[in-house]
């Protein structure tokens, strides 16, 4: 059995339907556990006070905003190279969730910045490049919405997504390349974490919760996109007739 058989929308539709409840359940369980760790187990930060607890959603949301964009751009590349229907549908389904996470990262960052830095907003490299990421998501969605022919919309939005992917490493390395108010990475794969173990644990649990949520909601959305775009096909007719 090949995994490529699921690249057919008719098969992926049913697979996605089976996966959604699992990822939704994982997201709920991990969110409850992450919040419990973050709000009840983790102690108050000696410098930042209670407000530091915002990082348990701010950091996962910021990571998800970047990660979803990379995944979206990956699907766009597949769509452009192999001209597959499912890949462009997946990119289309991921974009609103990526935009939502990027917005949450900016919003929560502002409310963390106020007590920590004394300001809601500053035009530093990390924050500004994250705002550019949000605009890239908006641009992707607006471009898709402005073109009636889905295949043309796929190609145009894929190109935009691929050009915009350059912004992701800029966001990530901005705190190293420029002198920013935003602090450097507290968690890195190459060095030991600069935060207490229980705080790191709560943050990582929330990261996995956000992943599970993003997968569940994107699968839910891609099923609707499949129905919209494949309404003329036999498998959708059979599906509707069987309801």
């Amino acid at each position, binding site marked *: 059995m090949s995994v490529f058989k699921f690249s057919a929308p008719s098969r992926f539709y049913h697979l996605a339907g089976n996966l959604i409840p699992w990822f939704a359940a994982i997201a709920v369980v991990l969110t409850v556990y992450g919040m419990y760790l973050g709000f009840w187990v983790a102690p108050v930060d000696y410098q930042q006070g209670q407000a530091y607890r915002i990082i348990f959603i701010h950091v996962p949301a910021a990571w998800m905003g970047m990660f979803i964009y990379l995944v979206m751009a990956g699907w766009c590349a597949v769509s452009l190279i192999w001209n597959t229907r499912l890949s462009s549908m997946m990119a289309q389904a991921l974009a609103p969730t990526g935009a939502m996470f990027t917005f949450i990262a900016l919003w929560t960052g502002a409310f963390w910045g106020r007590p920590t830095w004394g300001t809601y907003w500053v035009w530093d490299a990390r924050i500004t490049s994250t705002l550019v990421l949000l605009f890239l998501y908006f641009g992707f969605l607006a471009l898709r919405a402005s073109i009636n022919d889905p295949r043309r919309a796929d190609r145009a939005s894929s190109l935009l997504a691929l050009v915009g992917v350059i912004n992701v490493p800029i966001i990530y390395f901005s705190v190293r390349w420029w002198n920013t108010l935003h602090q450097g990475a507290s968690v890195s794969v190459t060095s030991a974490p600069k935060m207490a173990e229980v705080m790191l644990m709560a943050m990582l649990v929330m990261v996995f919760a956000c992943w599970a*949520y993003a997968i569940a909601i994107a699968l839910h959305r891609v099923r609707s996109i499949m129905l919209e775009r494949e309404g003329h096909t036999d498998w959708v007719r059979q599906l509707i007739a069987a309801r």
Partner: protein
Amino acid sequence: MEFDRHTFYIAASYGMVIVAIIIEMLAVRRRRASALQQAEMMTAIQAPPTGGKSATRANGQVASEAS
């Protein structure tokens, strides 16, 4: 006093997360309902007339009566 201010920042952050997730879930459910409705309409338009010859004849009769 400081804790109260921090509570506001935390509530504003997590409150917006809850609002954003609710909006996204509602939008996804609405889109699903709309997509299903659209697919049902397309299926109804493309479906052959039910009842075979008799339905065709019935349609023909209606058409001739109208003319």
